[in-house]
């Protein structure tokens, strides 16, 4: 088992609001190995984006209260701003959800894609632009050389996302964090972008963290996944195993709520009861217990920790940790 490339240890990130401290990331730990694809899944507000931003130390105005982010032996939470700038865009790259607003509208795309090369490798304009054009064509943009002269608004949504991916990869980083890269795109384009990310992962060997709320997306893309709820990880394991036999009631309920084409026509949909929790005022014990179909007494008292359940998975649930299987209508 190779050394993990990136290791998040008990990370806590909080935001100060009028109503109190919001615990956006509440004790998150996971590993990322070289060349691996990891998915972070959860609904809006569960803390997955903030986790990623915390890794990059871009979580402002949030504050990293405690925890470590070990990258190649160094704790990123303790690194200086200068050291972080060196790492951002060069060793760890991040691409964002909405490519229209994430690209600067007044600079040409080629120039923007080439920028990390100029900054981090010190290359001159011509050399960096050539490399950028090369990368643009490798991510599937036709006539890359002339397209590089165009502005972001002249590209379609899918193309723009390819540009962002190109921009993230120009310096061949070791880690690529993709925060909801397909959410703002049409379904057909989504498939293309995911293909591209898979291809990139294989060809460049870039470890990829894919953040999404869409289970279908991780199914096709990620070897391992981590499920988050209310700022905490509730389940982790190989994607295949988690999907086949989820070991946490939340994951179980999520999978069950997906409408299926082969279901009986009159069968009602099965949404998850209740509402997402207020992050300022989390429920006692397990954050999910008010909505849980399997809860027992202990769930409202003690906060469950992430433990091994089954051969390959880990789950933060008292019920499954004590051996109960999750089944039901």
């Amino acid at each position: 088992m190779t050394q993990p490339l990136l290791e998040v240890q008990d990370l806590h990130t909080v935001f100060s609001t009028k109503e109190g401290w919001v615990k956006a990331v509440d004790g998150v730990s996971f590993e990322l190995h070289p060349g691996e694809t990891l998915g972070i899944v959860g609904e809006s507000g569960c803390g997955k984006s903030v986790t990623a931003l915390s890794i990059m130390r871009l979580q402002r105005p949030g504050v990293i209260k405690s925890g470590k982010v070990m990258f190649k032996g160094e704790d990123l939470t303790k690194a200086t701003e200068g050291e972080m700038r060196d790492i951002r865009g060069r060793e760890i790259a991040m691409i964002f959800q909405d490519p229209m607003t994430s690209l600067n509208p007044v600079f040409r795309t080629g120039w923007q894609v080439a920028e990390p090369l100029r900054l981090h490798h010190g290359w001159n304009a011509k050399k960096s632009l050539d490399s950028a054009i090369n990368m643009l064509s490798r991510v599937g943009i036709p006539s890359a050389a002339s397209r590089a002269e165009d502005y972001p608004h002249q590209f379609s949504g899918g193309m723009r996302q390819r540009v962002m991916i190109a921009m993230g990869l120009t310096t061949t980083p070791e880690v690529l964090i993709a925060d909801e890269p397909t959410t703002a795109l049409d379904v057909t384009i989504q498939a293309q972008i995911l293909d591209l990310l898979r291809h990139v992962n294989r060809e460049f060997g870039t470890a990829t963290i894919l953040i999404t709320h869409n289970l279908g997306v991780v199914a096709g893309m990620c070897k391992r996944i981590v499920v988050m709820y209310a700022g905490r990880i509730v389940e982790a394991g190989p994607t295949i195993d988690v999907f086949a036999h989820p070991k946490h009631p939340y994951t179980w309920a999520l999978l069950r709520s997906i409408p299926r084409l082969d279901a009986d026509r009159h069968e009602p949909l099965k949404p998850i009861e209740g509402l997402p929790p207020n992050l300022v005022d989390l429920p006692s014990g397990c954050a999910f217990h008010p909505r849980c179909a399997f809860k027992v007494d202990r769930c409202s008292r003690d906060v469950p920790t992430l433990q091994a359940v089954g051969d390959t998975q880990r789950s933060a649930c008292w019920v499954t940790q004590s051996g109960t299987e999750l089944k039901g209508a």
Partner: protein
Amino acid sequence: MLAKYVARRFFASIVVVLGVTLITLVLMDRTRGTYVPGIDLNPSLRPDDIARLRADLGLDRPFYVWYLTWIWGVLHGDFGRSMIDGSTVMSHILDRLPNTLELTGTAILIGVVIAIPVGVVGALRRGSKTDHTMTVVSVAGVAVPQFWMGLILILIFSVTLEQRGLPWLPSSGAYSAVNGGDFFDRLEHLILPATVLSFFYTSTWSRFIRSSMLEVLSQDYIRTARAKGMSERRVVYLHGLRNALIPLVTLIGLELPGLVSGGLVVEVVFGWPGIGKLAFERALQYDYTTVMGVTFFATMLVIAGNLLADLLYGVLDPRIRYT
């Protein structure tokens, strides 16, 4: 693409020009029928002399003839003649325009040079004491009547200083005949009026830049820039400011038309020999034609200024060219 955009803007302007000529002459028409030229100079004019004078100035022809003659004149640079002394409006304009441009141009320059840093600092240090102070000064600056500010500055920097035997600033004119009007002399005369005039620009624009910067800095592409590992300076000044300045250019563009007329009050208070003061002086003498001619000229400049601002915007913001 840019050419098409330019053409469209140009045609829109032409329509407006025609509209303005119409309004101008409709207003003028009010005076045509009644005013007797030269009556002030010679109260005992005989009726046929009056008729002859009116005929000379074309005051007795039907409206449309007069209108067309006037348009024809304008296309040849003839903006009319004074009703009082017969001097051509154009000669006055040529004489005074450079002075006005000098004044308002300097004021706008001062405005930009001060507003940008003030606005950026305000945005970066949002909520701090510095920011609050700057906001208060800006809000106050917009409320001060220009003419009054001029008077007060003259009081302080001209009158009082002179009374105390200290070096003082001149309070009127663009240069003094005595000193021969060299660069420093002109500069001395320019300081006070330009400061007064720029106050409004500085106040408004600094607040504008501040809010524009704040908005830009909250955009996603700024987050992307940081994620690429850029220094904060580069993020703010290259990626941020470049976007924040675009709307400012529009604002400045909106002021360009006012370049000729905006300084009128200041010109009068400081005796600055510009177009504004010309219009004012002539208005007091009821020299309708001169005031008319100057107004029309200024309007043409406004329309040209608007066109120029549109073009500038097209150059700066690539998204506009393609709409």
